[in-house]
C-alpha cells in the first residue's frame, strides 16, 4: 500500500484476456509528431497501452486494453487512431465487471 509508483502491469495481471494475436483492434495512424490528445493517451489510458517510442511517435500495444473507449473519444474523430472492437470472444473478459 505504500508503493509510490503504481505498476500498471501488476494491476492488469489480475485480469483475464484472450488476445487475438496479430489482429490488434486499435491502430495508430502514421505521424511525424503526435497531436496533444494522442500524446495525452500515454498518461490517460487506464491500461497504459500507449507509449512514446524512440523516434518520438506514439505507439499502441492493445493486449491489456479494457475496451473503455477513452482513446476513441479523444482521438478517433481527429483521425489519430482507428478503433474497432476485438473479434467476438476476444479481448478483456471481466470476472466481476
Amino acid at each position, binding site marked *: 500500500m505504500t508503493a509510490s509508483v503504481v505498476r500498471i502491469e501488476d494491476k492488469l495481471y489480475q*485480469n483475464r484476456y484472450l488476445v487475438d494475436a496479430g489482429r490488434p483492434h486499435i491502430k495508430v495512424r502514421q505521424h511525424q509528431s503526435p497531436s496533444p490528445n494522442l500524446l495525452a493517451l500515454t498518461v*490517460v489510458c487506464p491500461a497504459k497501452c500507449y507509449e512514446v517510442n524512440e523516434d518520438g511517435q506514439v505507439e499502441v500495444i492493445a493486449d491489456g486494453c*479494457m475496451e473503455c473507449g477513452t482513446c476513441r473519444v479523444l482521438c478517433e474523430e481527429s483521425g489519430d487512431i482507428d478503433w474497432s472492437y476485438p473479434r*467476438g470472444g476476444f479481448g478483456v473478459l*471481466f470476472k466481476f*465487471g
Partner: protein
Amino acid sequence: MTEERFDAIVVGAGMSGNAAAYTMASRGLKVLQLERGEYPGSKNVQGAILYANMLETIIPDFRDDAPLERHLVEQRFWVTDDTSHTGMHYRSDDFNEPAPNRYTIIRAQFDKWFSRKVRAAGAIVLCETTVTELALDAAGKVIGVHTDRAGGVIHADVVVLAEGVNGLLGTRARFRKVPKPEAVALAVKEMHFLPEEVINERFGLTGDQGCVIEAAGTISRGMAGLGFLYTNKESISLGIGCLVSHFAATLESPYALLDAFKNHPSIRPLLAGSEIKEYAAHLIPEGGFKAIPQLFGDGWVVVGDAAQLNNAVHREGSNLAMTSGRIAGEAIAAIKSRKHPMTSDNLSLYKAMLDKSFVLKDLRKYKDMPALLHTNSHNFFTTYPQLMSQAAQNFVRVDGTPKIEKERATTAALIKARSRWGLVSDAVRLALAWR
C-alpha cells in the same frame, strides 16, 4: 441462421439489451440478441448498485434467484481534502424491509442471471459475436446487421442498439456522434476481497446489510469527479471517475488517482489486508439531457448508455438503461401487435413513452448541471472541499481561541477563496441548475 428473419435484433447483453430482449421475447416476438463477450457480462462494468423497483417492473420475483450481494442500509456522502473527510451519513432501519430498495451487485454474475431469464423467455442469445455494421436498404432503413461470423446479413424488422456508451454501430451509421470528451467520465475500479466478517465489522453491518460511500473533493485533483466504495458480500468495489476532457487537460493518470484514493487516510483502514482480484475501466455518460442523441429512426432504436441515458447527479445509470430497454421493447411489441411497420414515425412511440417516464423527466430536471459542475470543477471539487475541511476543523478543535474569532476566520477564508460575488453566484447557479 442467416436465412431466418427476426422480429427484432438486440445488439448487446447489458442492462438495456437484456431488458429489451426479455420484454419482447416474453411478449411472443422472435428475438435474436448478439453479444460480443464470451458470456453476457464479460464486457460489462458497473459500480455497481441495482435499484430494485426498475428490475421489479420487468421481473417481479427477481429476488428469488438473482445474484444480489448486499441490500443497502447506509449511505455516506463525503467531502474530502488531503487528510480529512467531512461527511453526512444516512442510515435507517427502514431499509431492512422485506423487499429491499437497493442492492450491490457484481455485474458479470448479475448479467449471466439476467441473460438466463432472457433465454427462458424465448430469445436466441448468441455470444462471441461482434456486430460489425448495420445493414441498410437503399432508402436508409435498417434491415438487419452484419457480424464477424461467416454469413451475410441477418434480417430483422427492427434493431435495438443496446451497444453501450462506446457503441460503434450507431456512430458508424451516423445516427449519433462519438461522445465528446467533456460528455463522458472515465472510471477505474478495483475489486478488493476481504472476509465477510471483516467487512461487517468495519462497516457496522450484520447479515447481508450493505454500506455505500461516495466521496468528492480533492481526491479528483480539481477534475469533475467522484470516488466510490461499495460493500459486496465478500468484496469491496472501490473506484473513481472523472471527465475524460479533464484527464486530458490535467494529464492525471487514472490508476495513480485510484491509488491515491485508496491511500486516503479515511479509506485506507477500510481496505487494509484486502486482496485485489480485478482492475476495470469504463466510460460513463455524463452529458445529461443535452447530450441525448436521436433515439429512433427507420428500423432502429437506441437505449441505455448508448443513448447517454445516465443521471450523473443521482449516480443512476443501470436503472435508466433497464427502463429504456423495457420501454423500447414494449413500444416495439405494441407496434408489432398492430401489424404496423417499424418506421421512424411508428417507432416515435418509444420516445413518447420515455418522455412520460422518470427517465427523461429526471434528465430534463438536471439539464444544466453538467455544464455547471464541468466548467467550475476546480471550485466545486477542490476549493470548497478544502474550505469545508478548514471550517469543520475550526469548529471541532479546541485551542483557547475565542469562538467569535474562529467564525470570522471561517467566513474570511470563504470570501478570500471565492469573493462575496463568487459565493453568491455559485450558490445561485447551483440552485438554478438543481431546480
